[in-house]
C-alpha cells in the first residue's frame, strides 16, 4: 500500500519543481486589507476580484503522507489487491471533484465573480463549481456531488469557503475522501514579480477534514497564476470512450471532412 501511496504523492513531489519556481519569485502582496473582518457581505470594490483566466502553479501539502484511520487503512489494503494505479477514474472521465480539483490538472481555470457568487470552470474534465456568498446561498442540494455545496464569506481580503455535501471519492491511492469530508478554503490574491512584471496569483489555503478516512486534517496550499494570455480550450473527455466502443462494435463513422 505504501508503495502506491508513495507513487501517488510522487506526482505531488514532481509538482514541487513548479512550486519551487513560484516560491523563488518575490511575493509582493498588493492585497487590500481595508475590508471588514468576518462579514458575509458580497464582493465589493474593497474585496479582491478573482475573475479571469488562471493556470495551476503548484501546491504544497502537510502532511505529505496523510495517515489513514484503521478503517480506511483496511479499505486501502483491499483496494490495492484489486486496483493498480493504471485503473484510473480520470481516464474514464470521472471528475476529481473537491478538494482535488483545486490544485488541478494543467489546464486553464476560468473564474467569474459576481456579488452573490463565484462560478469556476475547469478546462480539464470540463468541471464546473458554484461558490455562493452566505447571504445568497440556496438550500443544500438533495444529492451530494463531486464539487459539493460551497458557501463563502469575506474575512477582510480573504474569501473563506466552506464545502460539504461531497460524494465519496473512494480511490485510495488518489487522495480519497468520504462524504463526511469537509473542506475549508481561505482564498486570497497575491501580486508577485515574474520576469520583471507584476503578476497576480490566487493563493488557496485548504484544510481537508475527513474523520472517516484520515486521522488528522490535511493542509494544502494551491496556487493559480493569472494567465489572461491563455485561451480556454474545449476538453471533451469522452471521445476515447466512444472510440473504444465503436472499435469493440466493429463500427466506423464516415469521415465527412474527407468529402470533396
Amino acid at each position, binding site marked *: 500500500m505504501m508503495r502506491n501511496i508513495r*507513487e501517488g504523492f510522487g*506526482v*505531488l513531489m*514532481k*509538482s514541487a*519543481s*513548479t512550486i519551487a*519556481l513560484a516560491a523563488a519569485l518575490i511575493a509582493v502582496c498588493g492585497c487590500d486589507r481595508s475590508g471588514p473582518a468576518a462579514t458575509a457581505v458580497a464582493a465589493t470594490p474593497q474585496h479582491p476580484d478573482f475573475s479571469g483566466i488562471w*493556470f*495551476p502553479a503548484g501546491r504544497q501539502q502537510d502532511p505529505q503522507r496523510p495517515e489513514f484511520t484503521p478503517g480506511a487503512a483496511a479499505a486501502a489494503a483491499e483496494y490495492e489487491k484489486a486496483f*493498480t*494505479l*493504471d485503473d*484510473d477514474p*480520470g*481516464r474514464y*472521465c470521472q471528475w476529481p471533484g473537491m478538494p482535488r480539483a483545486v490544485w488541478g*490538472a*494543467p*489546464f486553464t481555470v476560468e473564474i467569474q465573480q459576481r456579488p452573490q457568487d463565484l462560478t469556476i470552470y475547469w*478546462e*480539464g474534465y470540463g468541471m464546473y463549481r458554484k461558490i455562493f456568498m452566505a447571504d445568497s446561498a440556496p438550500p443544500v442540494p438533495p444529492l451530494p456531488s463531486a464539487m459539493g455545496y460551497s458557501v463563502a464569506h469575506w474575512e477582510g481580503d480573504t474569501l473563506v469557503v466552506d464545502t460539504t455535501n461531497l460524494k465519496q471519492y473512494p480511490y485510495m491511492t488518489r487522495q480519497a475522501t468520504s462524504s463526511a469530508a469537509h473542506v475549508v478554503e481561505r482564498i486570497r490574491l497575491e501580486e508577485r514579480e515574474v*520576469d520583471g512584471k507584476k503578476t497576480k496569483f490566487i493563493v488557496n489555503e485548504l484544510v481537508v477534514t475527513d474523520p472517516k478516512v484520515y486521522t488528522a486534517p490535511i493542509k494544502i496550499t494551491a496556487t493559480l497564476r493569472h494567465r489572461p*494570455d*491563455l485561451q480556454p*480550450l474545449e*476538453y*471533451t*473527455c469522452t*471521445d*476515447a470512450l466512444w*472510440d473504444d466502443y465503436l472499435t469493440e462494435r466493429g463500427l466506423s463513422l464516415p469521415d465527412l471532412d474527407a468529402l470533396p
Partner: protein
Amino acid sequence: MNKRLKGLLVAALAAIALPAAAHHSFAIYDMTQNIEFDGVVETLKMRNPHMAMTLTVANPDGTKKTINFVEGAPANMIVRLGLNPADVAPGKPIKAIGAPRKDDPNAYFLKAIILPDGHRYNAVGP
C-alpha cells in the same frame, strides 16, 4: 504570440509537463525506453485526456508496419506547447519517440513528436 512570450509559455508548461501528463500511472509502460520511429502519420486522434496516433514506418526489407501509439499527451496540453495539429495530420512525415507497454510491445506511449524542421514536443519531461 511573440517569440519571447511563446518561449515563456513553453518553459512554463515544460515545468509542469510531467505531473500534467501523469494523471495516471505510467507503470504499464517501460518509460526508461526512448524508441525512435521515422514514419508517416497514418491516423491521428487529437483528443483528451490523451491523444493517440498510428505511424507507418518502413522495415529494413522495404515492407511497412504500423506503430500504434495508444496514448500520448492531452491534446489541449500539446497544442498549448505549440504543436499545430496540421503538422501531424495523416500523411505527414514525423519522428516519434515511444515507450512500449510492458505487456504489449506493439503498443506505445507517445513520449515526443519531432517535426522535420526539428521542433520537438514532449508529452513527458524535457
